[in-house]
């Protein structure tokens, strides 16, 4: 796919879609959205980029292998569940900051859990698709 228009467009679409995915992630607790959708949109952004620039270019852009996002995300999600235990509270107690932070909004353990989901989804989708596309080449 060597269309110049698509190539240029994807250069701009990548940051926009990524921003959109983070937007979806952050508002997920109050409006439609969340870690799953956000992660999927982010993956689509990278996949689009890889279509126009080639998988290797996208991997270079990512700097790290998407597979390494999986353990990070799993760890973050698990940590956000078990962190309340440190304070002597039962597992999965929701912990929230009193006041909302600027831009991000309310911050609590559920947000970190959602972030973990986001990272795992991105990692899984990109690992699968990039592995297949590299194999096919």
């Amino acid at each position, binding site marked *: 796919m060597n269309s110049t228009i698509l190539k240029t467009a994807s250069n701009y679409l990548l940051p926009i879609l990524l921003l959109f995915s983070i937007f*979806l992630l952050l508002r*997920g*607790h*109050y*409006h*439609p*959205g*969340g*870690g*799953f*959708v956000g992660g*999927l*949109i982010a*993956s*689509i952004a990278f*996949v689009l980029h890889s*279509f126009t620039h080639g998988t290797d270019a996208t991997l270079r852009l990512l700097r790290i292998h998407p*597979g390494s996002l*999986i353990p990070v*995300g*799993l760890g973050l*999600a*698990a940590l956000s*569940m078990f962190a309340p235990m440190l304070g002597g509270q039962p597992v*999965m107690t*929701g912990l*929230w900051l009193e006041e909302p932070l600027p831009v991000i909004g*309310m911050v*609590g353990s*559920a947000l970190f*859990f*959602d972030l*973990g*989901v986001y990272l*795992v*989804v991105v*990692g*899984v*989708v990109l*690992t*699968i*698709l990039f*592995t*297949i*596309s590299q*194999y*096919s080449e």
Partner: protein
Amino acid sequence: MLAAVLSGLIVSILYIPFGKYLKDRLSICVSFLPIALFAYFASFIPTIRDGGHITFHYPWVPSLGINLDFHLDGLSLLFSLLITGIGSLVFLYAAPYLKGHRYLDRFYAYLSLFMAAMLGLVLADNVLLLFIFWELTSISSFFLIGFNNDNADSRKSSLIALGITGGGGFLLMAGLILMGHLSGSYSIQEMLGANEYLKGHALYGWILALVFAGAFTKSAQFPFHFWLPGAMKAPTPVSAYLHSATMVKAGIYLLARLNPVLGGTDYWMYPLVIIGGVTMLYSAFHSLFRTDLKAILAYSTIAALGILVFLIGIGTPESLLAASVFILVHALYKASLFLTTGVIDHETGTRDVTRLSGLRKVLWPLSIAGILAALSSAGVPLTFGFIGKDLIYEATLHTVGVLPIVLTALALLTNVLVLYAGFLAGIKPFTGPLPQNLTQVHLPNALMWGAPLVLALLGLLFGCLPFLADDALLNPAAHAMLQAPIGTSLKIWHGFNTVLLLSGITLVSGVLLYVIRKPSQRSLASIERFNAWSPRHLFGKVAQYSKAFSRRYTHTLHNGFLRVYLLRIIVFAVLLLAFRLFTGGPIRLTLDQLSPVSVYEIIVAAILIAAIFLAVTTSSRLTAVVATSVIGYCICLQFVFYSAPDLAMTQFSIDTLTVVLFVLVLFRLPPFLNLANRLTRIRDWTVASAFGAVISLIAIQVLNQPFDGAVSRFYGDNAYTLAKGKNVVNVILVDFRGFDTLFEIVVLSIAAIGVFSLLKLRLNASEKE
């Protein structure tokens, strides 16, 4: 105490990493374990002699009533000392016996495991714990019996042993749970208080049947006895250990232990006396026809077990004392005879009794052991066996009614035959002229002849000075079986009475039999004609038929064609669901609750149907992929219509990614094939349509049910108050059901790892294209 029981388990585990260093000369080191345990248990003798008992309590799974409770009383102590004492000798003996064997490390690991399981079995106070150790003995003995795993017979024998004892174990478990449930406690000591209630309960018969099934299979009672002669395929030290003091005595232990809980009724007594009587006579008679030393010993072991069951069944104080004495007597002489046989086999290479004689000239210390053990088994005065036999006659004579005559006659006949078997195994190989081919035989390592000699001398020692064993061990053991003082003690000399007369008759007729009857291959052949009716043969037939049946069954149902499996499952599901729908009453649809239909919904539905039709019928892969994605987008639209924005977004992204996925591999995918003929397609369509119709009908049925939204209401009401979120779907995912989501992303990760490893890792080097 816990450490003592578990030490064997720990040692057997340690053999996995360190076993290879202990293979050669160091293999003897592990014998320190049973010796140390023997010393540990011996230190309890004073407490037990003074009538005390010791309990240990470690909570394990208290909510299920399973606790690591151990109880040490006379009975447990007797068995513990036998297990560790004879265990020590067997450990020492096996080092030279199996010297240089490839799997010597494994052998000791299995043996340690087995010893630990036996110790746990006799010390456990909790019946569930007892069952766990019971099964552990079955499993570890499976490995020991099948130790020569390159021998097909050996493998088969160990399977039979496992099948019989394991099957009995299942029944026993049911019995024990029943007992625990009815008495309200799984502790044997606490069950003692509930014994009257148990005996009067309607399920008492079931409990007895189940417990007997466990005990009889383990202790090789008729008709389950045949696994024991088969188990002779094991190395001889194993046979000595399993069949003199441990494995087969587990059933005896169980009966003795439960005697105060369940015993004392006719339902307890008659089955035990009858089965024990049949077993002892049947197998003692069988031993007449064997020529293999180990087979002779195997049958005389079964006979001894029969005697023990018989004695426990009689249940008088005298018979229980007789049983506890006979346990020790038999353990000492039978282990000694087995170990003697092991040496003979090891040095001469044969166990055929017709070809062995005169070995006293070359193996003189061993001949002392063999002859002493044989005399003890015969019950010659001044051996321990004499005291044991006296007590048996004493017990049978003091029953009531016509029983004394019948039971005494039974015991007399069995004892004569056991004497014959003992002489054959212990005396025949050592007496007479030495054949030419055996002159080169020489004495093995001192450990090998020392072990049987020690046991035989112990038999003589207890025979001359019975009080040594009596106060410390046997009376407390019988006390534990009866839960009351016994009141009599062991004596060498009872004066001139009926018992002495019976002993004399036994000795004289046994010796006469030995002198007259010579074992021969011909008599072995004569008994083998009856094999077709033997329980072993019947068991084999059953196993054979079930194997043939399962093969045919597998062949029909599990033929390797995925679509055949699917077809069967679906047809079955359709029939089952259709039956339920049919019997569930008429299917009605209340139209007034339905939501109205709008034009664009109809259009989307029409597109969806068209796409499905295209996906199913097309012969182009590209069309199929496009049609599938159209289906996905249409479903996405349904989510949009019916207030599910999260779902719509997710479905949309996933559908996009799925298209990418297909596109990436599409051109590498194989072309469509149309492999089915017309008839198959019609059949498949029929089944598939039926399934679709059933699902639709079920959906209609469910829609007619009043819907209780309690769960949804809970989430709706608490989403903000508890979890500070307003998008309820997301709150459920990340907060209320966070664990589910966590595991979901774990599953996703596994899928990614699976894809990665399938493609990146070359499974097969030759596969590189």
